[in-house]
């Protein structure tokens, strides 16, 4: 698969050298379990080291050339793993002290985690005498994640750490296949139109030799011959015009279609990707990829490739014709060609870097604009208009300087091409005259040659552009295929179970979730009865939102299972399952459209009565009527003109309209003031009634209505119970509650840590 070529090669190739060395260290009966190539030394300099786990001991060589250290397994050994800012470390402890510590860059982290696991397993097995449990399944050699059906690691294939190659462009073939017939005809037309363009210079030969020169020598002009030749010229011109039109039309059409297919397919694929993917990408980046990259590829196909093929054909045909007329003169004409091509390439190259630089500088200018205009209130409030103007002027000055430099080369470029053409013509003239003087060729042949060659050099210029445009298009194609190669991490089941009437019973069994290498949730067990309201509380980062995301199946659990009415949610059709979930988020998102459209987002065929009923229940009806066009008022991307509370109530109406069995409130009231919160709370009370509800709230007071509170800490459930029961227990919830009550005073009294400005000598 092409997709795999750009993914980093599994470790096996790199692993080989150390494996051989490691095996020579083993005692009889000892086996190698895991190895880690260390690429940093203790002072964090790049250096090669090696860490090995065998069935009996841990072996380490800090850097190349130093000796091996070993620690035979004993009960109090402990290997701990940490990573910070791109550097990972493994440290070996016993009860009394640290025995060793090793560093490596983050790229080695998966191997390090595997080594730490292997250490634990081998140590336990060594102490208990039982063989270590075999790994559950054959995982990816790089990160240990389970492989997909094709034996590729979905996690590693995603991380592309390789530069683009022009070969990426070949993958566009998949999109070109439906258009192979138009493409074929396009090619034939290109061939024909280029050939037609070859005719006029050819006809100058008989015009010279059989008409004009005989006339100069005293013979009358043969009118019928002239008519024939001129007619031929006209016909050739008309033919070339028609063919070239048809060719350009067909091929541009195909290119535009390919570009549009590429866009649609990418967007469709993007919509199918899980939230995990969007979490790591910036909106602007994705927009640019789908919008401008596909456009760039389309341009490349329709303009640059087309021109290039035409040029190559033209040069090949011209060369063939010239050689057929007179090989010697042809040789003299074509010899300087490579040299001229080289010269053009040289200038082009400089120009290209200049243009690229100018492009980037331009983005610098837009950065200043993008910074200043949205932040204009801050700029004015701090009276920094002059400074922003200075910043803009500086960026603009750089832009000017870069463009000046480009223009120096650029202004030279066109005249240079003309000069080169003139020199080429000069060579042909000189050699041609010499040949004519020797009666080796006729004047007509020389004229034809001159006519052919003058078109030659200008084409070389456009041909020289193909290198850079190909590179750019390849980079664009790669960015698009990055998206297309991404495998959805929430797969649709092959044979989904049908979901009948849902009661809303949710069970979480031993749920664990890892994000990359980081473990976010561990061993979460929870059963939620139909119609029950659960309040999720805990510090930020304790895994509340992750848990909710898992229940919505925005991600899939790493271990364990989530069941709805006894059926694993992974066995249900995604759309079917999510239809039963209503989600109200902290930041309600309104799409561009009318208020009614926004309320009916989850159920586009809802009647007006239903929409109004939902709005009433969400306490949104009154304020919607106050809007200038009522339910038909337009609201923008973020609902301009609506307050936070109003937007929130529209989103509650949206959730009410689909009448879900399960309701999820993720900090639904935390971004509004207490007054608005009370209003929203009333709307929410309508929403919650009779539904299984999971609510996350920062303000614990908003969860008073919850049947049970679930307290989370560091990815685990630490307490479950009612408010009163948990308060009586004086555990984690009690502390949270107390902290919130104390919050205001504590903030005010914020203790300052001891400061050291000057420490007297000898006190450390």
């Amino acid at each position, binding site marked *: 698969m092409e997709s795999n070529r750009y993914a980093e090669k599994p470790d096996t190739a790199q692993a080989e050298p150390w494996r051989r060395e490691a095996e020579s260290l083993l005692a009889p009966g000892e086996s190698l379990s895991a190895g880690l190539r260390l690429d940093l030394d203790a002072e964090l300099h790049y250096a090669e080291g090696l860490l090995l786990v065998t069935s009996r001991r841990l072996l380490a060589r800090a850097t190349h050339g130093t000796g091996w250290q070993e620690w035979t397994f004993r009960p109090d050994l402990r290997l701990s793993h940490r990573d910070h800012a791109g*550097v990972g470390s493994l440290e070996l402890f016993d009860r009394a002290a*640290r025995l060793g510590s090793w*560093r490596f860059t*983050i790229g080695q982290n998966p191997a390090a985690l595997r080594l730490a696991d292997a250490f634990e397993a081998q140590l336990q097995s060594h102490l208990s005498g039982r063989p270590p449990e075999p790994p559950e399944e054959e995982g990816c050699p790089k990160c240990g994640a389970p492989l997909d059906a094709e034996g590729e690691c979905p996690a590693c294939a995603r991380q592309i750490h*390789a*530069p683009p190659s022009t070969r990426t462009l070949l993958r566009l073939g998949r999109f070109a296949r439906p258009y192979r017939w138009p493409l074929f005809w396009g090619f034939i037309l290109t061939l024909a139109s280029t050939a037609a363009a070859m005719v006029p210079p050819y006809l100058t030969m008989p015009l010279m030799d059989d008409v004009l020169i005989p006339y100069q020598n005293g013979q009358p002009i043969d009118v019928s011959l002239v008519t024939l030749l001129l007619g031929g010229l006209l016909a050739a011109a008309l033919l070339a015009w028609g063919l070239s039109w048809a060719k350009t039309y067909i091929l541009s059409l195909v290119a535009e279609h390919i570009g549009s297919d590429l866009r649609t397919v990418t967007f469709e694929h993007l919509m199918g990707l899980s939230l995990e993917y969007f979490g790591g990408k910036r909106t602007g980046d994705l927009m640019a990829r789908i919008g401008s990259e596909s456009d760039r590829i389309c341009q490349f196909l329709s303009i640059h490739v087309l021109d290039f093929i035409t040029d190559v054909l033209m040069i090949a045909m011209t060369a063939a014709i010239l050689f057929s007329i007179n090989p010697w003169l042809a040789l003299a004409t074509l010899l300087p060609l490579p040299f001229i091509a080289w010269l053009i390439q040289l200038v082009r190259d400089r120009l290209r870097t200049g243009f690229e630089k100018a492009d980037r500088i331009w983005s610098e200018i837009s950065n200043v604009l993008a910074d200043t205009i949205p932040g204009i209130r801050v700029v004015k409030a701090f009276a920094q208009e002059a400074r922003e103007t200075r910043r803009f002027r500086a960026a603009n000055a750089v832009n000017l300087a870069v463009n000046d430099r480009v223009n120096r080369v650029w202004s030279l470029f066109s005249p240079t091409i003309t000069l080169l053409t003139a020199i080429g013509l000069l060579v042909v003239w000189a050699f041609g005259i010499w040949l004519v003087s020797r009666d080796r060729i006729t004047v007509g042949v020389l004229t034809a040659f001159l006519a052919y060659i003058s078109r030659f050099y200008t084409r070389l210029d456009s041909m020289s552009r193909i290198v850079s445009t190909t590179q750019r298009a390849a980079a664009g194609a790669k960015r698009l295929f990055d998206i297309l190669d991404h495998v959805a991490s929430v797969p649709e089941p092959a044979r989904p179970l049908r979901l009948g009437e849902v009661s809303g019973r949710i069970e979480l069994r031993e749920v664990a979730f890892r994000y990359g290498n980081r473990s976010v949730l561990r061993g979460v067990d929870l059963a939620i009865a139909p119609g029950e309201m659960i309040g999720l509380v805990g510090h930020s980062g304790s895994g509340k939102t992750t848990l909710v995301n898992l229940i919505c199946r925005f991600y899939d659990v790493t271990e364990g299972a989530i069941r709805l009415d006894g059926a694993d949610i992974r066995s249900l059709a995604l759309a079917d399952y999510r239809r039963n979930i209503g989600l109200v988020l902290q930041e309600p998102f309104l799409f561009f459209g009318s208020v009614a459209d926004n309320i009916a987002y989850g159920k586009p065929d809802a009647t007006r009565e239903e929409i109004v009923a939902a709005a009433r229940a969400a306490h949104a009806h009154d304020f919607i009527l106050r809007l200038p066009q009522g339910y038909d008022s337009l609201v923008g991307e973020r609902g301009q003109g609506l307050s936070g509370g109003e937007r929130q109530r529209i989103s509650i109406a949206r959730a009410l309209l689909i009448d879900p069995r399960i309701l999820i409130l993720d900090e639904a009231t935390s971004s509004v003031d207490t007054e608005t919160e009370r209003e929203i709370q009333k709307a929410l009370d309508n929403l919650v009634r009779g539904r299984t509800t999971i609510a996350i709230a920062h303000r614990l007071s908003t969860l008073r209505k919850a049947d049970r509170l679930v307290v989370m800490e560091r990815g685990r459930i630490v307490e479950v119970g009612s408010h009163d029961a948990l308060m009586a227990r004086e555990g984690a919830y009690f502390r949270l509650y107390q902290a919130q009550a104390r919050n205001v005073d504590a903030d005010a009294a914020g203790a300052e840590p*001891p400061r050291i400005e*000057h*420490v007297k000598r000898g006190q450390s």
Partner: protein
Amino acid sequence: MTADIRLERNAFGRLVLTCADGETVEGVVPVRAFPIAAPDDGIALVAPDGREAAWIERLDTLPAPLRQLLEEELSRREFMPEIRRIHGVSSFATPSAWSVGTDRGDTEFVLWGEEFIRRLGKSGLLIEDSRGIHYLVRDLKALDRTSRRLLDRFL
């Protein structure tokens, strides 16, 4: 406010801070407040729970043994190789694989895009690779001609 502190490394390799009032914190970590702009000014000793346990105004006013201990710990923690030379780049279109010489030895990395090169002041650059490791170019003008020319294509 001046406080006396004592700092020691225990057998587990952790730094143990003893404040003036006799309170001890095990496993403090030194963190530079301005790692690029002023690396030697403002160093916080952060306790394992993420709380600031002590604040050191300037590294060079500390007594030698304490400073040495801190510098040693910092050098084991901070990883921001300083690029001294660019040996080569795989292509001028990104992503592009770079082969560089740094103050920590030679290495290779992949640059995702031009936007991952951040300007620092007038002539400094901070380059983030595809794995999130940062590389510093302290002074663009101090690089040799070849490196400058290669880098120039990305700026």
